[in-house]
């Protein structure tokens, strides 16, 4: 049966895709027939392994690009390669990001630059090149992975929350600017999700987190990637400029 998501044969890029939410997004898009280009930053072996997994599991084409999203030249090279090979792009999942916690007095300039460079500049670089490729077909979907922390803050996460709030602003502005090109821009704001980012939390902290969630469970990467699938697909073709919280009712 033909999938109602209408993604077969289309091209996606997912940044920060070797683990956690990014990897889950890459898998769900590949599962629905997309060619998926994945990006990682440090582990080339892992990146290649992920590419092989996508090909073997889902029978789709896949490529891996190792680069730091805050390196504008590297981002440009990646999109140039996509342009040369595929001549189009349909979906960008701006997922690459770093989280470093620090109370306000402990925020170093180096930390500030690093988080803002990766989480904000990296997202904008990808947005710039992706939107130009999408503009050729007057169609595309850009999904920025923000965070519940970007909407409501958290102690010890002033810089991280600033970067994730910025992604919401980017989403709103880009949605307005790109709508005439029929390019949609939305954000997903995950709540507490079971990824490497939180795996080292102490058991009592994890329990407190879980108790703060109305649905009484910590989210999974698949909870996020299913929302990304919806936003990637034609099922959401009239949805743009939205921030969708996927947090188990943490804040209702």
């Amino acid at each position: 049966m033909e999938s109602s998501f209408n993604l077969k044969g289309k091209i996606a890029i997912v940044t920060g895709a070797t683990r956690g939410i990014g990897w889950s997004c890459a898998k769900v898009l590949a599962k629905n027939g997309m060619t998926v280009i994945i990006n990682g930053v440090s582990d080339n072996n892992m990146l290649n392994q992920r590419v092989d997994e996508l090909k073997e599991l889902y029978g789709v084409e896949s490529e891996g690009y190792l680069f730091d999203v805050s390196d504008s030249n590297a981002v440009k090279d990646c999109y140039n390669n996509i342009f040369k090979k595929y001549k189009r792009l349909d979906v960008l999942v701006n997922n690459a990001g770093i989280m470093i916690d620090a109370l306000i007095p402990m925020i170093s300039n180096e930390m500030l630059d690093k988080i803002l460079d990766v989480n904000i500049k990296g997202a904008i670089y990808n947005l710039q090149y992706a939107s130009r490729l999408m503009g050729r077909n007057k169609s595309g979907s850009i999904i920025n992975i923000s965070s519940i922390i970007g909407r409501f803050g958290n102690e010890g996460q002033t810089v991280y929350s600033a970067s994730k709030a910025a992604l919401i602003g980017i989403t709103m502005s880009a949605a307005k600017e790109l709508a005439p090109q029929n390019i949609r821009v939305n954000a997903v704001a995950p709540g507490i999700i079971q990824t490497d980012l939180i795996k080292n939390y102490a058991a009592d902290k994890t329990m407190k987190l879980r108790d703060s969630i109305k649905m009484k469970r910590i989210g999974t990467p698949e909870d996020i990637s299913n929302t990304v699938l919806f936003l990637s697909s034609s099922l959401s073709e009239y949805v743009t400029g939205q921030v969708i919280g996927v947090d188990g009712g943490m804040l209702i």
Partner: protein
Amino acid sequence: MSNLDKLHAAFVEALDVDPSGITDSYSYGDDKWDSVAHMALVVSIEAQFDIMMETDDVIDLSSVGKAKEILAKYGIIV
């Protein structure tokens, strides 16, 4: 189609301007070439010539004459 025809076609498609108005001096800020249309123009030029421009060139694209200079950097003589 000559490269000049392609360039004119890109402007006509993106900005919906009369081809007779597309002279070298036609510039950003002139009739119909505003900030929103700029994006469409960049996409249209890239599609016509099958190139992907550097961000600096997108920013520098300020007139038809400048577009010709930029295209020359990509080996396209208009």
